[in-house]
């Protein structure tokens, strides 16, 4: 008797469970049907992966009946130890690399080979109200070589690349990687990171600021003594570090295809050849015409520094007058 009671109880439980699941399934289907049929459904066109980082058998592109599919690593297993992000793989790959959580090889034949990295930010001013873009060479050269982007995708010269979000969305320019494998364009602020017209930060310190050192050679009062060799060298070092060292090396050692300054034939050769390159740039290369960027004083300081630092040269100044003369010569096409 007790047994049959127990059985009937179990049966009742089972039937109750069955009814609940019927209702549940019915509701599920009803909700789905509503989502499909209701013309006013919420987020009608929003495409969103419901569960990110699905395992291969469930990811909708691997064939679950394929014998190899079950052996493949589920992304979530790998990603559990990597820093999270909001979009893409939902992994912050740049941080993972910086923090050493991943150590991808830079060379197939030499796992310990170091990657050449170039540290140069390019600021691109943007129309409208969006913050300006800061393009960091550093994070890109951690992964890529110069030749991956230059010169097929981007001309290595400031202002020579007309970028557009439309092209990027269509998979061109930055969109060759961003939107396919590198973080997607929905992460607007990772590129548009510099607010318009930044307030200049005034540093108060006892020592002469970089600006003062540079000003000493650029802002000459009427009839004042021309800047000394030491002043030119000091200003030149600052300007070289800010504007030249990314390509030519902090110690003038060069970088990949960019020529070294140490022992350079140009820097140690005739002044006129050196002047020509610095002022007018070199066609079809990343060497831009610095004459358009800087005044005579700055160019004189940079060239004095290049011709005398790292054991180059013999203590001779390049003067602002020489730069002005060279400009006139270049302008007249000589």
């Amino acid at each position, binding site marked *: 008797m007790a047994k049959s009671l127990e*059985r*009937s109880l179990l*049966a009742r439980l*089972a039937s109750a*469970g*069955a009814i609940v*699941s*019927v209702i*549940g*399934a019915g509701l*599920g*289907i009803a909700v*789905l049907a509503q*989502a*499909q049929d209701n013309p006013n459904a919420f987020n009608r066109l929003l*495409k969103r*992966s*419901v*569960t*990110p*980082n*699905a395992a*291969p058998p469930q*990811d*909708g*592109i*691997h*064939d679950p009946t*394929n*014998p*190899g599919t079950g*052996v*493949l*690593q589920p*992304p979530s297993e*790998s990603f559990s130890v990597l820093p999270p992000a909001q979009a*893409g*793989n*939902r*992994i912050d790959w740049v941080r993972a690399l910086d923090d050493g959580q991943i150590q*991808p*090889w*830079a*060379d*197939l034949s030499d796992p310990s080979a170091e990657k050449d990295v170039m540290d140069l930010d390019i600021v691109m001013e943007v129309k409208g109200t969006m913050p300006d873009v800061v393009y960091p060479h550093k994070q890109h050269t951690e*992964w*890529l*070589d110069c*030749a*991956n982007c230059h010169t097929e995708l981007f001309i290595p010269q400031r202002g020579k690349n007309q970028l557009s979000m439309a092209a990027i*969305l269509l*998979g061109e320019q930055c969109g*060759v*990687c*961003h*939107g*396919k*494998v590198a973080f*997607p*364009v929905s992460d607007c602020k990772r590129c548009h990171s510099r607010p318009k017209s930044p307030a200049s930060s005034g540093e108060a310190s006892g020592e002469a600021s970089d600006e003062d050192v540079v000003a000493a050679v650029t802002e000459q009062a009427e009839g004042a003594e021309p800047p000394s060799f030491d002043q030119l060298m000091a200003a030149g070092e600052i300007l070289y570090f800010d504007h030249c060292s990314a390509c030519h090396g902090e110690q003038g050692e060069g970088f990949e295809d960019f020529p070294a300054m140490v022992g350079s034939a140009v820097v140690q050769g005739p002044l006129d050849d050196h002047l020509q390159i610095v002022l007018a740039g070199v066609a079809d290369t990343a060497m831009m015409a610095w004459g358009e960027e800087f005044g005579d004083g700055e160019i004189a300081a940079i060239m004095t520094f290049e011709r005398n630092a790292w054991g180059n040269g013999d203590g001779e100044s390049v003067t602002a007058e020489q730069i002005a003369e060279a400009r006139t010569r270049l302008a007249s096409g000589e």
Partner: protein
Amino acid sequence: MNDWKSMASWRSRLLLACMAALVLAAGLLVMQKESLAEYGDVVINNYSTDAGMRPVVFPHWFHRIRFRCKVCHGDLGFKFKAGGNDINMLKIFDGEYCGACHNGAIAWGVENCTLCHAGQPGMKTRVHNSTLERLVTPPGAAGQQQPAFDQNQ
């Protein structure tokens, strides 16, 4: 007693029916979703289907943990374009493209066909979950230039 037995079997049948309904609902749910493929997964089907194989699924995420982009996209000559590299098994045997690593020395060798050829049969070449793919209005809808990939699976 007979009554009870028939009731029980009726109930078990009902239970089965419910389970079937649940499975159906789950199936519908799965069908509703976008592909859950990992961001950057590339399906390559230049020759696979014609050769009677499943298409290849290349997981970018797995490879970028192990190699910088430049190793494949510079040193090994892979172009930045899904399906844009004319890869075939002969080249892989010769150590080109995937064969530079998938040779049994750096990574498992080519005899493990089903580890690469793991895609659902007939899928076309595309980069999964790309920004372009997630656009509600695909470019080309208004007669513009067609994008470089195929919208449909």
